[in-house]
């Protein structure tokens, strides 16, 4: 019974301490900052370009430029954050009329239109070199999750298409900035290797080096 009382008192003490800390949470440049005390939030809107390689470059050697996305992260006091990230990436390439020999022995003369859409939804974790209150925060990040992939190769109007959801991994390095010590608005520049385990026809896994820039907002 006594143990319960002590536990109750300890809980009350922690409760009170938390309350005290919360109420004193005005951000300041030099001293106290809520970002150092609590788990805070950050949201970033991204735009990116991709540099395909491997079999994806064989399929479409054009850089994906229609890449947008959003990340929402819980920023821990100190040097870590976790969150989720959604990207939408689409690329299309048209090849002039050629004759293609396909598997059954047919020769197919067509203008080919190739499209690839990749939409990864990743859980992301980041480790930062600098403190949560720093205005410049270099980081390394690992993203793991799944991606919706739509692969299409059009011969004229005829299409050979495959869609599916596959596993995806995306390690990244980057730098987050804030526009001033008191500002909640910032930017993010990152280089990300994105690997999606999707195999069909010419595509033996989707591989891209993504260069992403983002505008971020943080709150507490």
């Amino acid at each position, binding site marked *: 019974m006594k143990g319960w009382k002590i536990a109750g008192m300890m809980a009350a003490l922690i409760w009170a301490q938390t*309350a005290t800390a919360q109420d004193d949470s005005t951000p300041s440049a030099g001293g106290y900052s809520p970002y150092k005390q609590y788990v805070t939030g950050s949201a970033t*809107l991204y735009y990116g370009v991709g540099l395909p390689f491997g079999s994806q470059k064989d399929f479409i050697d054009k850089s994906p430029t229609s890449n*947008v996305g959003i990340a929402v992260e819980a920023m821990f006091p100190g040097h870590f954050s976790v969150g989720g990230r959604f990207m939408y990436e689409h690329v299309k390439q048209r090849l002039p009329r050629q004759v293609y020999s396909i598997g059954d*022995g047919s*020769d*197919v*003369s067509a203008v080919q239109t190739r499209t690839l859409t990749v939409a990864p939804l990743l859980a992301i974790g980041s480790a930062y070199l600098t403190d949560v209150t720093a205005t410049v925060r270099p980081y390394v990040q690992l993203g793991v999750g799944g991606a919706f992939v739509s692969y299409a190769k059009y011969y004229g109007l*005829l299409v050979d298409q495959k869609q599916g959801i596959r596993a995806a991994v995306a390690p990244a390095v980057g730098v987050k900035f804030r526009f001033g010590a008191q500002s909640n608005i910032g930017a993010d520049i990152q280089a990300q290797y994105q690997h999606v385990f999707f195999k069909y026809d010419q595509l033996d896994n989707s591989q891209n080096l993504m260069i992403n820039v983002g505008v971020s907002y943080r709150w*507490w």
Partner: protein
Amino acid sequence: MKKFKTLISYLKKNQCIPKLLTRHLLIKQLLINMKLGNLFKRLLAVGLSLGMGWGMMACGGSPVDDLSDAESQVFITNYDRSVNFANYRTFSLPDSVVIVSNSGDQTSQTLLDQAVLAGLAQQLTNRGYQRVEQGSSADLGVAAIRVNNSYVGVTSSPYSSYYSNYWGYGGYGYSYYPYYPSYYNFYQVSDNYWNLQMVDLKNRNANNQQLNVIWQAEIRGNGIFDTASTNDILTNVFSQSPYLQANK
């Protein structure tokens, strides 16, 4: 919000509010944070809208909507690898095309049909084959077939009925039907397209009543029924079939 924080700070500094009240105030603070959260939600909504809009831009229309008629056209050819086309000299080509549809087969002689037949004859003549009068014996039987509308589920011998008397002379009548080796693929989609084919009349198989289809072409896409584009289409089809060449 600033006043609110100042008030809490003051009360706490003077230790004049019980913890429960502090907790109550914290709930209020949480509500304030939620206002910021609403801003985040708006950002999220904007982001998702952008993403969805982008996606709809990409997915709303087909990626091939912008193809011209000529660019949309697809020419698919295949042939029997065991055949030496130099061993054939003559061909028979009727003066009508076969219309294949769900409602049955018939023949047609529109201006378009005549243009296709004339172009087909010209291409074969250019390759050294000699056209014979309808009803005369020939090495090759050539057919121009227009597949209409929802004719889907094409199987291994889709055009049997026209063989009944298409080349118009005795010996290749009702009992013969085409034989397609397994490497001929028929794309089973609802579409209107041309099918050109060549059967081996010279080496017809009397035992099993088969006429081997030794070459075929499928022509698909927009504008393939325009008379003006007939020559370009046939030129493409034959340029990808260089093996069609009679001995000179």
